[in-house]
């Protein structure tokens, strides 16, 4: 019986999750097959270009899910999630840089190229360990996690809320962007990290690796979704909603609101980190512009478009907007910003519940008796 299961299993007997996972896995499988089975010139062939593109979308989708978790269910509008995304990306980027080894243009076995020609003498301390995959991948989670922990601890402890919180999350990512632009920081400044060769020994240029990354991203999204869903369905999820709607009340019935917020915030940050880490090898570069506040805001809009507090809505939003972006920047570049801007306005004004809101209205009824059914059998 659902509510007596472990929190991670609960999502699986929820219709929407089953549907979501079904579609996701199906789509990923289909793309992979079309890519592998059909020859280059065949009409049904999916090119490596498309596969990578889709992989990128999925990364964005995961990021959107992370944002929805804190915004939708905790009521914290983070305008700084790009920071966690980028940190995860940099952790991965540093690993990939170290993998280049002596294949850089200067053939320096240790130092990345940008350090050589800005004649750095040795590797900065924070670059050590990133030659080991396990360490780097741990950092993908830890770096964003720790930042979120420290930042969140300060913010939530002193009950910074609403607009103020949004603004300082923006300040956070803005400060980080400026910092990473500085070449002294040792992260390659504006050029960031690029020219990656291979990951875990697989050549990043081979289509097989690309497909692998795409599938990995699909799996990551599935897991991320289930984790978030699990949290949402757990009692903690309900407490989060309680914090969102009546913070004071939640305190008076004995919950430490700031702890709840901190926990969910950190989890969300780590998910964003994972998204970033998968993003970098697929697009082939990480640079401080990922920290730009505008990017973070854009992510929030994906969520708003898809429908806040639904998780799957976030995914829909991310995919739609980015697909639109790809199309528009191709056919009518000048109109792109008009379209995006118009979208923001229309969605927030006319469609406060987002696309998911539209879907929901129809599904509402059977959702209800599903719940009652569950209670009755209790």
């Amino acid at each position: 019986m659902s509510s007596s299961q472990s929190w991670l299993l609960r999502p699986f007997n929820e219709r929407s999750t089953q549907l979501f996972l079904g579609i996701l896995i199906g789509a990923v499988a289909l793309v992979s097959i079309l890519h592998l089975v059909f020859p280059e010139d065949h009409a049904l062939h999916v090119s490596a270009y498309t596969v990578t593109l889709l992989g990128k979308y999925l990364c964005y989708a995961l990021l959107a899910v992370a944002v929805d978790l804190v915004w939708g269910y905790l009521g914290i509008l983070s305008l700084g999630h790009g920071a966690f995304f980028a940190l995860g990306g940099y952790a991965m980027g540093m690993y990939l840089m170290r993998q280049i080894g002596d294949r850089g243009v200067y053939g320096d076995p240790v130092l990345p190229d940008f350090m050589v020609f800005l004649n750095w003498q040795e590797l900065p301390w924070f670059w050590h360990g990133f030659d080991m995959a396990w360490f780097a991948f741990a950092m993908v989670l830890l770096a964003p996690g720790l930042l979120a922990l420290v930042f969140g601890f300060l913010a939530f402890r002193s009950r910074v809320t609403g607009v103020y919180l949004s603004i300082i999350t923006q300040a956070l990512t803005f400060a980080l962007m400026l910092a990473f632009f500085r070449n002294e920081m040792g992260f390659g400044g504006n050029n960031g990290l690029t020219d990656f060769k291979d990951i875990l020994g697989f050549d990043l240029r081979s289509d097989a690796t690309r497909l692998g990354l795409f599938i990995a991203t699909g799996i990551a999204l599935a897991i991320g979704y289930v984790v978030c869903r699990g949290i949402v369905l757990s009692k903690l999820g309900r407490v989060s909603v309680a914090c969102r709607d009546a913070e004071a009340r939640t305190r008076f019935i004995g919950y430490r609101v700031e702890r709840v917020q901190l926990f969910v915030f950190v989890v969300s940050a780590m998910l964003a980190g994972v998204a970033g880490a998968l993003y970098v090898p697929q697009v082939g570069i990480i640079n401080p512009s990922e920290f730009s506040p505008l990017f973070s805001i854009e992510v929030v809009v994906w969520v708003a478009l898809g429908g806040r507090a639904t998780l799957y809505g976030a995914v829909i939003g991310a995919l739609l907007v980015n697909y639109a972006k790809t199309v528009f920047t191709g056919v009518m570049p000048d109109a792109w910003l008009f379209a995006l801007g118009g979208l923001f306005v229309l969605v927030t004004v006319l469609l406060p519940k987002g696309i998911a809101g539209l879907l929901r209205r129809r599904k509402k009824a059977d959702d209800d008796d599903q719940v009652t059914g569950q209670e009755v059998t209790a």
Partner: protein
Amino acid sequence: MTIKKHVKTGLSALALSISLNALAADDPIKVGILHSLSGTMAISESTLKDTMLMLIEQQNEAGGVLGRQLEPVVVDPASNWPLFAEKARELLEKEEVDVIFGNWTSVSRKSVLPVVEELNGLLFYPVQYEGEESSENVFYTGAAPNQQAIPAVDYLMNELGVERWVLAGTDYVYPRTTNKILETYLRDHGVAEEDIMINYTPFGHSNWQSIVADIKKFGSEGQKTAVVSTINGDANVPFYRELGNQGIDAADIPVVAFSVGEQELSGIDTAPLVGHLAAWNYFMSVESDANYEFIDAWTAYTGNEDAVTNDPMEAHFIGFNMWVDAVEKAGTADVDAVKDAIIGVTVPNLTGGYATMMPNHHITKPVLIGEIQDNGQFEVVWETPSTVAGDAWSDFLPGSKDLISDWRKPLECGNYNVATHSCGGAADEAAE
């Protein structure tokens, strides 16, 4: 006159190709254009897109290349670096273009580079850059540091007798590298450390008060002082404004800029800047028929009497003509054939001379020093006696002084180390 020449070659090529195979004449040669049309870089890059469209149009009117029409494929990477890589992939994999003209910022080039190498495309990069790169698939028609920075410094040192130096730049790789090179260069020429002041500011920096004040102090120690500015784009307007207002005029402390061209000046009230310098390989004010022809064509194309031309546009002009010649030389637009054919190709530039593609994929350019006029134009006050060949690897950086680049057989190496006689770290790629 260049145009006429191309009409001729075009026609002859047309006749030739028709006689050879009428089939080939049908499908056009695709030319990818990869410049940001939205976002922060649109300011600089959108005009380059138009330049390419103009050149392609002219070429087509002249009968195309090998009798095939040229078909431009324009995409918008929206000033977003990962998007550059993605769009490059789109151009090469989906559109299957035969050549790409594009990019402005270093980071966008770095982001595109792996894609172009992987899919064996051709990229013509038209902007002055920091060097320290030589890819088999990229042709650098902009200036390398030794084609801009070093001659400019020579000019200041020898003609103006400058003894103290301020190296002011935006904090990204081009200024960083250029200043590293200049620093070594100046030290080699006996400039003491305390006579060099280096300063970096973020992109779009707008509050120059204290920095300009420092420069003023630094310059008031008696010896002749000059500012070498690698300040990028938007930050320049407030910088020059502040200079003007704090009463630093060109006669006392001249500023020589590497990133300020006619187009940037069109957005500045130039009155207070008269006499400040810029180093380029082309100025709109250069007096040559080729240039007049180009300017006329450009104003006609844009339908704007006051439309300005600038150095990167000339670079595209040269790059495009080199590519056309190479294609005709090779008799095909096939990448590998063109890559081999283009080395040694010589075409007229807009300053009345000629540009040759060197084996290291850089070209020969004259270096001009211009003084800003109150009408937003530059007046050439000095130029190198002959053209200078671009040097991919600077001799003034410890990491790269032993490296050379030569893409001709048998060496075919972008970073050959003359000390160890090995082909740098890129060995395995060169082997492919």
